[in-house]
């Protein structure tokens, strides 16, 4: 069910052109990849943005989770609003019924389409705050079975985020040509 109505929010504020920097990019090769990790993230930015273009090998479900600093504890919660082209749905997850915060819903490889997603992680290096993110993700396949969602997720930890891992909740892999780009946004 989650793969049909699953959410996140983004398409955020336009940064000034000298404060938005590309940090790292991962493009998945022919063998696919079960996890994508950005590590050694510098603390020199104020916010992070992850922009992705993804397809998953798992046709039965394509829910993706995000994990910070490899924390697999029950420290995440999320709310979402989604639509599947005919109905809307909303829901939430608390206390790590997953081992990460739900982040976006990717296209399955039977669709021929790729999902686009944008995740904003605010104040990621601030050691006085729990960390929150928002995202927008969606894919269309010229038929039914697609999904569009907005979501916010929290990591209840005040540690600075130094690594971010993305993976398919149901154990599938990201397919070839999927790409993930991490950007840093500076403050004044």
């Amino acid at each position: 069910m989650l793969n049909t109505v699953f959410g996140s929010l983004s398409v955020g504020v336009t940064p000034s052109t000298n404060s938005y920097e590309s940090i790292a990019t991962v493009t998945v090769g022919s063998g696919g990849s079960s996890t994508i990790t950005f590590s050694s993230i510098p603390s020199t930015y104020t916010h992070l943005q992850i922009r992705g273009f993804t397809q998953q090998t798992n046709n039965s479900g394509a829910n993706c989770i995000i994990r910070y600093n490899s924390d697999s504890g029950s420290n995440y919660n999320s709310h979402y609003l989604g639509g599947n082209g005919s109905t809307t749905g909303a829901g939430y997850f608390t206390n790590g019924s997953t081992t990460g915060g739900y982040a976006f819903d990717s296209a399955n490889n039977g669709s021929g389409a790729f999902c686009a997603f944008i995740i904003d992680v605010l104040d990621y290096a601030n050691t006085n705050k729990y960390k929150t993110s928002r995202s927008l993700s969606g894919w269309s396949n010229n038929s039914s079975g697609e999904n569009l969602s907005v979501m916010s997720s929290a990591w209840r930890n005040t540690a600075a985020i130094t690594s971010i891992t993305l993976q398919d909740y149901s154990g599938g892999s990201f397919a070839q040509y999927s790409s993930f780009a991490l950007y840093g946004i500076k403050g004044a």
Partner: protein
Amino acid sequence: MAAGSTYTPIATTTLGSNQAEITFNSIGGYTDLVLIVSAKQTPALNTQYIRFNGDTGTNYSYTILSGNGTSAVSARGTSQDRWYSGYYGVPPTDSYGIEIYNFQNYANTTTYKTGLSRTNRASGGVDAMVGLWRSTSAITSITYGISGVSAYLTSGSTFTLYGILAA
């Protein structure tokens, strides 16, 4: 580790007179594109759209998540000749709407193209949307237009295209 600043303005246009469409060409060299639109229209309630490379074939589909202050709705369009990118969030007539489009991996020649949008009309509602162009061609031009007979984007509407280059 960082590759340097990006999010580069490519072009900005402010309409000096009413017109139905605006097209951005010469958009190569980036990983993603972001289009920011602040537009009004006349007459009311016509739907805006996106086309790529001038393609008028039925190669577009889209899915909508929208709310109008009373209820939320999800709907889809399939085999369309353009990406109709507004539902409640069409350009207003009494003020300027806010629209942001993201076109990911727009220049790759392997996959179909997927875009995300958020369109907003304070007097009507808000939309989130995903659009698909079933073509593996690189996107080399983007057209934003308003549909409907004798419908126009009005003078003063602004359109800014940015390019984001990944490391």
